[in-house]
């Protein structure tokens, strides 16, 4: 590695710089020190300091200390306070007043249905009602599939499960499902 301006401040009296010593640390530990490195007291002292530093850095890497236990709760409370409730879909009801469900909630139910198929994970899911029929919905869903466990019929299973969940769990007919396979995941 070329000596750049940053390292010139850290030249050792022997002419090598700290960064050079650092770059060679593994080589020397593997027993491939050159003649200078075997004899030079400056290089040896620097090497020893760098080794202490490297070991401490490894301790920092291994640290598991986390924030106080209620931090997740505080973050999520703030997040929930900002959740916007829009895109409401009507649900069938014989009662006056009407019942509506958020598209976000319907999407969560449909994603869960799709996740039930082995090797499939639902990602994007947009739900909307059709222009002509309030009690039928169109859904656009993207899925990622496991590249080890993927089989083409899995998408047919997704289609069947999503349609079944729409009717049985939400009570709205699935008029159209646009399914997009847009990613693979490693599992």
């Amino acid at each position, binding site marked *: 590695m070329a000596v750049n301006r940053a390292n010139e401040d850290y030249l050792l009296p022997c002419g090598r710089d700290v960064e050079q010593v650092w770059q060679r640390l593994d080589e020397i530990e593997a027993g491939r020190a050159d003649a200078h490195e075997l004899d030079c007291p400056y290089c040896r002292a620097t090497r020893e300091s760098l080794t202490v530093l490297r070991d401490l850095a490894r301790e920092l890497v291994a640290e598991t200390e986390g924030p106080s236990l209620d*931090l997740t709760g505080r973050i999520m409370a703030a997040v929930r306070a900002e959740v916007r409730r829009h895109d409401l879909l009507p649900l069938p009801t014989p009662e006056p007043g009407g019942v509506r469900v958020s598209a976000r909630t319907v999407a969560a139910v449909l994603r869960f249905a799709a996740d039930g198929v082995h090797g499939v994970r639902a990602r994007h899911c947009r739900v909307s009602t059709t222009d002509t029929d309030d009690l039928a919905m169109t859904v656009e869903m993207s899925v990622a599939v496991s590249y080890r466990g993927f089989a083409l019929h899995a998408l047919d299973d997704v289609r069947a499960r999503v349609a079944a969940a729409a009717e049985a769990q939400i009570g709205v007919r699935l008029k159209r499902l646009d399914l997009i396979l847009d990613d693979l995941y490693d599992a």
Partner: protein
Amino acid sequence: MPLERTVAYAWLELVSSMTTPIEVDAGLPVGDVVVLDDATLVARAREGDVRAYEQLVRRYQGPMYRLAVRMLASVGDAEDVVQEVFLTAWRQLVRLHEDAAFVGWLYRTTTNRCLNVIRARKPRADVELDQHESSGSAGRPERAVETSAQLAALVSALDQLTGEQRACWLLREVHGRSYDEIADTIGTTSTAVRGRIARARAQLAEVMAPWR
């Protein structure tokens, strides 16, 4: 109304025009243990899935906190930064175009928030060092004292670096981020990042000399 639908409604977020809306987490039933990949969680969170976002928070609050606590040497400031970072992330998810880029985005935002906190601080004398015992030496009581004294020395040596040098060294040596990513975070070139890390390493090694 059919019974099965009534049951399903119980865990849906219902909004009736006759009642006050109640917030219920939409998502998977309790007991789900599938560990989902980041991209899936980000895609879901972007569309308002709070439970998916909570999994991301639980997955990454630890590393972001550890970065912030070493940057700021203060537990309270570090928690404030982490909280802000995750709230900002939630608000800006729609603008994150690549789902897999989430972690890089978190590191970038956490680093920059920490640098802002440091810039806003009064001169160094006011900064209280908040040193942590190492958890890495558990079970090695003989080394425990020395190790924590070494760590204490490292922590106070870190505090002598500039904020940007400290960020570069921590991101590279402790969090394993790439030079390009760090350069992007700090707003410089990867050559400059290498230079800063080299300088930081030399300064830190000097402080470690008594322990060799």
